[in-house]
């Protein structure tokens, strides 16, 4: 910012000098002098100007080991894949509030031509800023509103949750599994349901207990919620929060858990069964290439296992071989679309059939999901 504004100031002063010199008829020397610094400034910025500048706004710290960490790894990988055609930067810990608009506006002001916002709460700020910078492309993760220069992208995290559920169902002894959940939005509810549906493959009568912490990132609270679930006889835990605290609590108690968003195997060597990860690299690479080649369009992308955006990795040795094979088969099925997680018959808690046998859920159905499937205990807290 400072750099830019000082350049502007300099340019303004030079312009003044030139006009002043012209007015007094002493054109020659001062014109040359005016031209010289201006061109050297242009030359200095040229190497940067040829590279596409991309900026990322993160909701958490890059060291959260989960959500933001996954985005930042992908940022580096994607920028590297473009072989120097893209230079990228990021701002972490940007709150989902008025500050977000300031930060995103700043990014546009600094000459970034491609701006990513990686949390739902940036939706309105990005819409606002996108309107003021029509030549900048905006990419918003997990949102649903678009504009001519603002598009959305998301990952089918529920596919990872389902595969984790399959492992959980095979490993639970108490037939009770637990989920530490963040905020009751369709995405999180979908993951709880998918985890339960997966577990039912091996344990049809499995019970899923859910504790909401109302935060994306609060490790001590996530640990307390995990402890509450363990106290209520859940022996395999999953979380839709952003830190490794739940897995570590399971490790401490000698129970089992999963990594979420990033590979967390090292945080619970004994407890860790697998990590449901999001790989944003394919999408970030595509987005950068779209802008570079001028083919960028305001689309809405929702990628999963098929596109390499979702995976269940680092399956533990204690997971039986046949379950590992099953996971591989599921992945293959998701890739060639012969298998879908949300395929009927699926009934809700009250026993009402929400998907008829053989019916595959449409994206609209999944995006607005606000009920628990049979097997999940409790009610969705009424909170918006």
């Amino acid at each position: 910012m400072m750099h830019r504004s000082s350049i502007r100031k300099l340019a303004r002063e030079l312009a003044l000098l030139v006009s002043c010199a012209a007015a007094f008829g002493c054109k020659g020397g001062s014109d040359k002098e005016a031209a010289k610094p201006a061109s050297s400034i242009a030359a200095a910025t040229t190497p940067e100007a040829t590279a596409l500048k991309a900026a990322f706004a993160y909701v958490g710290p890059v060291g959260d080991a989960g959500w933001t960490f996954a985005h930042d790894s992908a940022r580096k990988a994607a920028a590297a894949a473009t072989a120097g055609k893209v230079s990228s930067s990021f701002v972490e810990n940007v709150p989902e509030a008025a500050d977000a608009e300031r930060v995103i506006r700043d990014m546009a002001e600094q000459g970034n031509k491609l701006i990513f916002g990686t949390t739902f709460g940036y939706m309105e700020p990005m819409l606002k800023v996108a309107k003021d910078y029509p030549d900048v492309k905006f990419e918003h993760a997990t949102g649903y509103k678009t504009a001519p220069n603002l598009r959305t992208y998301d990952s089918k995290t529920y596919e990872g949750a389902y595969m984790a559920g399959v492992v959980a169902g095979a490993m639970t002894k108490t037939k009770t599994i637990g989920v530490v959940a963040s905020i009751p939005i369709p995405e999180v509810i979908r993951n709880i349901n998918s985890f339960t549906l997966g577990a039912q493959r091996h344990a049809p009568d499995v019970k899923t207990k859910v504790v909401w912490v109302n935060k994306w990132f609060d490790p001590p609270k996530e640990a307390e919620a995990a402890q509450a679930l363990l106290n209520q006889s859940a022996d395999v835990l999953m979380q839709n929060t952003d830190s490794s605290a739940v897995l570590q609590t399971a490790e401490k108690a000698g129970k089992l858990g999963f990594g979420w968003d990033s590979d967390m195997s090292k945080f619970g060597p004994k407890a860790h069964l697998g990590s449901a990860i999001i790989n944003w690299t394919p999408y970030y690479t595509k987005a950068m290439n779209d802008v570079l080649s001028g083919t960028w369009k305001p689309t809405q992308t929702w990628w999963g296992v098929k596109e390499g955006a979702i995976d269940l990795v680092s399956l533990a040795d204690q997971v039986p071989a046949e379950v590992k094979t099953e996971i591989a088969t599921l992945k293959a099925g998701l890739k060639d679309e012969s298998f879908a997680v949300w395929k009927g018959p699926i009934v809700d808690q009250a026993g009402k059939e929400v998907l008829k046998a053989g019916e595959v859920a449409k994206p609209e159905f999944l995006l607005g999901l606000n009920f628990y499937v049979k097997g999940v205990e409790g009610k969705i807290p009424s909170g918006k």
Partner: protein
Amino acid sequence: MDAVFLLLGASIDAGTALALASLGLLLNERAGVLNLGAEGIMLVAAIAGFATAFHTGSDVVAFFAGALAGAALAAAFGVLVIWLHTNQYATGLALSLFGAGFSAFVGIDYTQVKLSERTPFTLPGLQDIPALGPALFRHHYLVYLAVALAAAVSWFLFRTRAGLVLRAIGESPESAHALGYPVRRIRLAAVATGGALSGLAGAFISVVYTPLWVEGMIAGKGWIALALTTFATWRPWRVLLGAYLFGGVTMLQLHLQGEGVALPIQLLTLLPYLATIVVLVLISRDQKWIVVNMPASLGKPFSPRT
């Protein structure tokens, strides 16, 4: 029934860090110094403790490191407010902000590391008693230390001469000064001790309670500890009770959710704060209690010349 005792056990765990920090703050407030920097001190101590545990592999050394970091920060705060007469509120707030930023900065390299194997804590023989075992005898030793500390602070303040002097300084530093006590040095000692205990609480959180380091992981516990001293009318046992109560309601709301009780989560999240305030206000509703117990010179600077 077992669930109730497990809940009790979890509540005691959850309240311990609050109790440790709050007892420390109680000591320096009894000497007349209000340290609003508790949150920052706990954060810096949390990373100091975590880094030490990571490099040495010893929790005990980590606790000392956390306490030392807390004491050092608090002592710096003490010098500023006691000798240089900076405003206690502003300096404390500055310390909180500094601690948050500083801990995040030095902790960058520790967000991805993991401590060595954690062993569960048990008291041989007692841990297997039905019901009481899981509730009372499977805690980390710092949990028991917090109880002992409440007893020690209570005994020190109300049964020893040194405690009397400390309280006198908190009530009327001028009188204590007239009697020849080194008011400022005693205040500094109280502040440093308070910082050490807050630091111990911070290290307990990052080394034992949630064995990991992430930026901002104290998540407001320092502020709650500060509030507890006031609601507990500066009485050690009430601080301990308040801390367990807060931990208890925190865990209760999570357990209720696990049991499938449907309440708005915003209300449940609010519950620990609400319950703690209500109970402590009720037990302290006698105005005289607050007037009698609140250190009269709390937050006021003292200069021997005036």
